[in-house]
């Protein structure tokens, strides 16, 4: 893990802390609100769905439930790559959309971030990334955490 609890900004009494599930895609650290996340599962056979939009990776069976897996790389306009051994699927709760998950290169820790340190929009570092999905950025000690709004993943069609 490149990131650990020590990297966290120091807690202050008044600040509101939010927890994020973090993951790596294309060597960038992303985070989604932990409230939206149902579970992180190891990779299993993904059934491709032909004719589906590019960002759709396919279907997986998670304990009898069929989940749609979205390839976040496509949504973020990042170059695609093969699924590796560290790849995981982050499954979101059904409250935010019909059940779906995203394919990530590797999961990181759950980070607690002082909401004061979250910059709403970054001018600096995320040019590569489609900004419509970005909820904010947060500078960690050795990394930049890009916070994504999972509720917007399936909005575009």
């Amino acid at each position: 893990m490149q990131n650990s609890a020590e990297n966290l900004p120091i807690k202050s009494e008044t600040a509101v802390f939010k927890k994020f599930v973090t993951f790596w895609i294309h060597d960038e650290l992303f985070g989604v609100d932990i409230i939206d996340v149902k579970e992180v599962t190891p990779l299993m056979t993904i059934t491709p769905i032909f004719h589906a939009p590019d960002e759709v990776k396919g279907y997986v069976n998670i304990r009898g439930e069929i989940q749609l897996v979205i390839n976040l790389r496509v949504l973020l306009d990042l170059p695609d790559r093969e699924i590796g051994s560290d790849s995981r699927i982050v499954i979101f709760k059904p409250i935010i959309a019909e059940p779906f998950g995203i394919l990530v290169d590797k999961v990181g820790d759950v980070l607690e971030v002082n909401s004061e340190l979250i910059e709403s929009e970054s001018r600096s570092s995320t040019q590569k990334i489609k900004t419509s999905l970005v909820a904010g950025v947060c500078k960690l000690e050795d990394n930049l955490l890009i916070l994504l709004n999972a509720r917007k993943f399936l909005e575009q069609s």
Partner: protein
Amino acid sequence: MIEDNELLSDFIEESKENLAIAEEDFLSLESQGKSADPSTINRAFRCVHSIKGGAGFLGMVKIGELAHAMEAMMDLVRQNKLQPDKKNITMMLKGVDHLNSMFDNSVQSNDYNIDEIHTNILKTVAIAVSGKRGQEQLDKLQLKKEEKKATQKKTTKKKSSPAKSKKKTEPVETNEPADDSTAEDPMVHLRIISECLSALKKDPEAGQNWISHAIEGLQSIKNSAKDKDLNNVFAMAEAIDETLGEIYTDRIEVEDMVIVACEDGLDTLQLLFDDIENSNEIDILDSYQQMVSVCKNFEGDPGIIGAFEEEDTKTIEIKSSDVISQSEESTDTTVVSPMETASTDLVQTPQRVKNNESAGAKSETKSEVESIRVKVSLLNHLMSLAGEMVLVRNQQLQLVDQSDSAMRNNTQKLDMVTSELQECVMKTRMQPVGILFNKFNRIVRDLGNKLGKNINLVIIGGDVELDKSILESLSDPLTHMIRNACDHGIEAPNIRKANNKSENGQIDLRAWHEGGQVHIEVRDDGKGINPGYIKKKVVEKGLRSEQDLVSLSHKEILNLVLLPGFTTAEQVSDVSGRGVGMDVVTSNIEKIGGTLDLDSVTGKGSAVRLQLPLTLAIIPCLIIRVKEHNYAIPQINLEELVTLYNQDVDEKIENARGREVFRLRDQLLPMLRLGEILSKNESFTDEDLAAVSIKYREKQKQAYQEFQEKKANSKWGDEKFRQSLTFAVLKVGSTKYGLIVDEVLGTEEIVVKSMHPYLKNLNCYAGATVMGDGRVSLILDVLGVAQHGNASIDNTKEQVNDVKGAETSDAKQSILLFKYGRKELFAVSLNMISRIEKIEKSMIEEVGEKEFIAIDEVSTQILRLDHLLNVSEFDDSNETYLLLPKMANKPFGILISKIEDSLDCIVDLNTESYIEPGLLGTSLINDKMTLFLDTYQLIELANPELNAQLTGGSESAIFSDEKEQNLNGNKKVLLVEDVMFFRTLVKGYLKSEGYEVITAENGKVALEEFKRQEFDLIVSDIEMPVMDGFEFMSAVRNILNNTTIPALALTALESDKDIKKIQAAGFDVYEAKIDKEKLISTVTNLLNQ
């Protein structure tokens, strides 16, 4: 309103069921007229009655009022005082509608406006009870009500001056003569009550029957008393009502004391009515208290008791106003009070049971089933659990260690139990279609009235069961279809009469099981769909161009009705005709995995047929593989599986109009390759299809070449080139195609999960499922795949051709263009050949003057065209093919040197400019003169001895011009055939036998011909435009009354059903059209009979 949601929703549900039954009963009462079945009346009465009871209990005042009025009306019908005629039934049905809509919005039901219908019903009741006078009285009553409202307002205003209030209000009411009517009516009730009491005295058991009537009477007394502020009357009536209710529900014994108290109460009530004007002044306290003491659970209205107790100390003004408010309150409490609750509830239950017993003998179907209400959500959950169970079972079946017998046994049991469980759970969701069908009685009736048509709806198969969800989604489409049938289908009575039909139109609504599916058909005997008209409309609306329509078959034209935006109604009525219609119906039906088929005969009626799956949740599927992915194909759509081996792969997959097709029996099947379909996001165009066709042709060639190279390089010797190709023949609606897959894995029962909403635009998938190995597989949508792959080549169907109605009938022909020598271009109809075989010249063996080659291990005689016809020599420079004709009695093959093309075109055969035996004629194909071969004649030419045998030793029949007259020349044959090819062909056959042949291109022309001259034999095709063979033949037999002329059907239809139909139409025999020998011998037999 009671805030008990559970109770409320139960009540609403039950009431809706009751309303449905009542509606049905009303309709049947109407149709029964005067001879109405008392049990039907009773049932309707009961239904309304229970609604009334429940509504009162739950505080749904308006519902109660309306139901009460309807009940009163039904009661009169029961007593034969009112006829269940159209007007009255319409009123009752309206009542049902109002009740329904109030139940739909139960929370606000009390704000619902029922005045109009309520008054109408009451008026009817009043008229029926007391003739015209009743009407007047009611009008007055109405008037009075309004006045009362006004006075009430006054009263409230004047409350500040209490001294006047009483005197002001009282006269207004008491001076009303209308009070007579209220007095008269109650008298009847009072008599009933006293009858009831005396009956109870004699025999408590028998008296029970009276109680419900007595209670009804009391209810109505209470209601009118409340309306007129007759507080004492109300209080007394209520007390008696309560007591009787207690007796009825067995909560108090029928003791003398009780009866005495009631009689006392009744006397008091009588007294009150005797002096109704001053009734509120009369002291009722004694008997009231007596009643209260008798009836344990009724504490009485403390207001009344109190008011009487304090009578002396308080002023009259205060008392009366007090009682007004008290009594108002008490009406509220009556409704809410738990005792009343219990009693109403219990009063109803035994009553219903009794009624059931009496009605049970006559109609056991509805009431006697033991049942329990279960929430649909619970059933759904159960369903999905059963689905999961099936998955686990499937996984277990794959995991099981076959060597472990204990485990194997157990798994087998699990397998069985799971299957049974799943079946049972499925059944819980099944409902008879009758539930839905019976709705249409009403719709048809109302529409009939509205449109001024007499329409009977005949429902058949109402007990066929369907999954609840399917049933629900059927409602709208079926309604639409029924409406269409009423509006567009059935003609107005005068038109029907003019067309020699019965004035009453009929719509059959039929459901039945067939092939594991449920079929539903809406058939009307109306005017049918006019294809010409459809074409016109389609062009007018710009949905299709005229050119598009030229090559369509009858069926395809009918199906144009399903296009979005199509309507044929001349005027847009409010019933139908807004052009949003059949396309929506189709898409709804397809959504639930069903298909829709249209059929129509102009002037006779039309039919829409739906094919529906029994259930949606678990379906048997064929599992196939393409590349490394598995897919499921619903077995409902699967017709058959075909595997081609080795050479067949190259040859049987043909190329027609630039796409791959397979000739499955007599049908051209468009072929789709699933791998290609899936790998391309956009729908396939004709060019794409051509590209696919070429790609695979090349691939095959390459594979073959590689094989040949390998073979040359190695010592494989006799090793043959091996390959195979598997495809599934799929059918959805009228679309049928072959889907080429890599491998068929087997069948499995799968649990259908719908596609993620994010993917709802994907048409190729019907859903997804988890397979036994835990992987997700997609379920293919057979229709979607067909559309994506552009598999709509229905018009390649042979012989089914309808070209621009009557004028022309030279339908398109699939022909093969090829060369033999260097010069001439030959053509042969694809119908006439079975296949083309590539041969090695070295394999040809000579026997005498003849040449043979082994094809499929059968020695086949080779025909060389230059030996038989005056054409150029065989061109040796190319490869050598052998054309194998169909239906030759000996194996023959025509040698050809080069396949030029295969195409569909309208062939205009020229038989004049150049003709010689062995040729059908010539035609210009792509501006080149092409010689059309007659394969049969060629065979005959090659083997004169063959023909000699056939015709009984006479000389060859081929050069028959001179012979025509002498042998069979006196026999005249009417040949009816739409396709010119066959016409020429069969005519040739017959002529060669010396018959005189008159041809007609369809049934209609033939019929005219038939009227004009006499014939000895009819030879007719079946599938023809304008008038088909069936129609033609039955016209000859039935209309022209010619039962003696022998008739032969030429057909490619061979199913038992078709054969029956052919025989039913009046044909004596049927024969395949290109089997010359059989045809001739049959004809000879027929003529010699």
